């Protein structure tokens, strides 16, 4: 079982075995990095935060309790705390796009023309468009959407990471979907969408 493997590795990390941390790093670095990238919107900051995340795993290994949750939820919670701390400090330009500005941007019109990008240029454009779209979501909706659609966490795990009830996590996910879908509806339908 994956969970028991992670728990055993964390026991070794608690005992000071660096190789156990390396194994955990190899297993989770990409997931954590992409989570940071998609929530923060900046690769440079994500690069900095992933280092801090695994450093905290090392120094806070004594606080990990396998009875309270999985290692996966725990490490995502560490990464999330980093994001939220910096967001509250406003030290970094945490990207958020006001939905009212969407009409002025051409990025979202991309999807109406090309849904299956073929060339690298089209793929880059598509990624920028998705990036922009995610930045229009408020942080607590974006977090749930990213954890579900990209990291494939279950809602139980998402609830553990975000420290919210599972029903709240699902409600936020539904709302995030509603917001994203509203971007692609016709102008006359947008008046029916409640502002978040």
């Amino acid at each position, binding site marked *: 079982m994956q969970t028991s493997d992670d728990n055993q590795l964390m026991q070794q990390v608690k005992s000071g075995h660096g190789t156990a941390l390396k194994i955990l790093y190899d297993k989770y670095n990409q997931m954590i990095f992409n989570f940071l990238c998609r929530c923060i919107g900046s690769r440079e900051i994500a690069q900095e935060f992933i*280092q801090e995340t695994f450093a905290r795993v090392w120094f806070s290994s004594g606080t990990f309790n396998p009875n309270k949750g999985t290692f996966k939820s725990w490490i995502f919670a560490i990464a999330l705390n980093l994001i939220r701390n910096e967001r509250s400090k406003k030290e970094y330009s945490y990207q958020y796009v006001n939905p009212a500005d969407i009409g002025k941007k051409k990025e979202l019109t991309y999807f109406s023309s090309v849904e299956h990008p073929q060339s690298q240029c089209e793929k880059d454009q598509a990624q920028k468009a998705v990036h922009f779209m995610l930045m229009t979501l408020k942080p607590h909706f974006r977090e749930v959407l990213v954890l579900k*659609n*990209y990291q494939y966490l279950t809602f139980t795990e998402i609830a553990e990471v975000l420290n919210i009830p599972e029903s709240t996590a699902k409600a936020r996910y*539904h709302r995030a979907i509603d917001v994203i*879908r509203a971007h692609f509806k016709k102008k006359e339908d947008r008046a029916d969408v409640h502002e978040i």
Partner: protein
Amino acid sequence: MSMKYNCSKDRVLAFYFGECSSEEGNRIQRHLEECGDCSSYLNELRQTGNILRLWEDSSPDVNTWDEIRESISEKELEKTNTVSYYREIAPATPFIKILLIIMAMAFLLFMLRSRIPLFSFWNQWNDLWVVRLLGPLGMAIAAIFCLGAFITLSMTPILIWESRIFKK
């Protein structure tokens, strides 16, 4: 004819992500064939998922692990240096702690008996405002305060040394 089935976005969500049992999945599938709202929502989930997947995964820089190791080593070294410093000035064995507490109490006792003229105001005990205000109770409060302050000051290096930040 399919059974009556309550419309639920949560059930459609579970179906979309494959997080329901096969029996439940079959029930939802039959419901979707009849319910326009739920099948519409399922389509929205699929379209949104397809769009989101356009943003492909990326990887951290290749030297990230080396940087993590370096960062951990630097912090460990800093911790070791700080622990060594405090160990030099306050070895925290139980015997030393008991000795310090006894010394603190003896010091306060001598202060109250005016044997040590270090703090001359203790010679005029009744001049303290708290004593003038509250009498014997004020005397007790002043004594407790001074004892606590002295013990805290002398124990500070030991408390810091034993604090969690120095524990691996």
